[in-house]
């Protein structure tokens, strides 16, 4: 009985969700055009929102929530993780090297350049991936991608980049373009039994409620990461948010830092180029 209902739910939702527009042939990917269209869409949809404010997610959409958030930012809940992250970042590995040795400028003020496409490895490298690569190269065990130490470290690195605009590059390499396109496809693809795509919430319904939460716009949605989320009573990374979003729509999450997730982060970061890093952040 439930199976038949689920099937009809999918079919109905797919039919309702489809816009019967002529499918334009996606010849050569044009990320710059995509990014401009993306920006224009949100600016047009929310003419009263200052462009930089989009990075504040739901707080750019709702006055009451903004007030409460501004109050709490004087004593932000991510403060403890941030301090822990700073300490961890400065502590050398057993072999005497440190995180600073793995990053440009010693890892200070570089968060806005992640993810990047590594032409040698032929894949997208996110900040979280780079941190664990740094650890493993120096004989240390990798951290879980979703919270705790990884959240503290990325909180510190984000903090050192506060205010710097996202500066994601797509090199003239067909593999990089492919990763970008795959990320874009993931973003718009419906999944899970609830048949949502990222776009269902963050393009079609920013500012609206899903259950008790106000939805954030997709543009600038990664700028505040990692976040202290009241729902989690703790910190969470980009990996945590991607995996939990999947399970919330009844899709089995992929492994953190899977190809799909890294490509998605690449796409979302690129189309938010120009918006300032605001992390670490606090969310309901």
């Amino acid at each position: 009985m439930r199976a038949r209902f689920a099937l009809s739910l999918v079919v109905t939702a797919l039919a309702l969700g489809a816009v019967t527009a002529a499918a334009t042939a996606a010849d050569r990917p044009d990320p710059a055009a995509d990014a401009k269209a993306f920006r224009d869409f949100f600016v047009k949809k929310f003419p009263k929102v200052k462009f930089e404010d989009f990075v504040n997610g739901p707080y750019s959409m709702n006055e009451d929530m903004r007030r409460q958030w501004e109050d709490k930012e004087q004593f932000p809940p991510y403060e403890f993780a941030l301090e822990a992250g700073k300490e961890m970042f400065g502590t050398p590995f057993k072999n005497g090297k440190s995180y600073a040795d793995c990053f440009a400028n010693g890892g200070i003020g570089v968060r806005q350049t992640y993810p990047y496409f590594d032409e040698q490895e032929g894949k997208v490298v996110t900040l979280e991936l780079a941190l664990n690569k740094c650890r493993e190269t120096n004989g240390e065990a990798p951290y879980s991608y979703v919270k705790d130490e990884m959240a503290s470290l990325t909180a510190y690195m984000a903090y050192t980049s506060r205010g710097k605009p996202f500066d994601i590059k797509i090199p003239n390499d067909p593999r990089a373009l492919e990763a970008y396109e795959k990320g874009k496809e993931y973003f718009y693809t419906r999944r899970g039994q609830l048949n949502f795509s990222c776009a269902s919430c963050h393009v079609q319904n920013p500012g609206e409620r899903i259950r008790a939460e106000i939805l954030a716009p997709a543009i600038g949605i990664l700028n505040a990461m990692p976040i202290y989320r009241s729902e989690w009573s703790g910190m969470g990374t980009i990996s945590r948010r991607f995996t939990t979003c999947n399970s919330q729509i009844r899709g089995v999450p992929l492994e953190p830092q899977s190809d799909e997730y890294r490509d998605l982060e690449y796409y979302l970061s690129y189309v938010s180029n120009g918006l300032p890093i605001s992390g670490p952040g606090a969310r309901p």
Partner: protein
Amino acid sequence: MTTTMNKRPNTAMKKIMFAAIMMAAGAMPARAASEADFKAAFAAADSAEKEAGRLRNQWTTTEAALAAAKKAAETANFDQAVMSAREAEALAKASIFQATSEKERWKDMEIR
């Protein structure tokens, strides 16, 4: 010599009447499911779920139905186990349908 039907049906008669009513209602199979039935149903569901996995689009509810099927089978409740396995197969197939159709449909959602 005349014979009349006993007014109170005997036990065998009751069983036949019950099965007939149930079959008419369509609520139960004509006979109880066997372990072999469960194994076949589970294999079909499992194979569909693996295909969904290859498409990177499994549903949490499919996994839950598979687990329920296994759990029911452990206590030899094969009727329930088969029902759960069939539900899992339907969910897995729906997720495969979703993944294959979304390969093209996603473009309809794209901001241009």
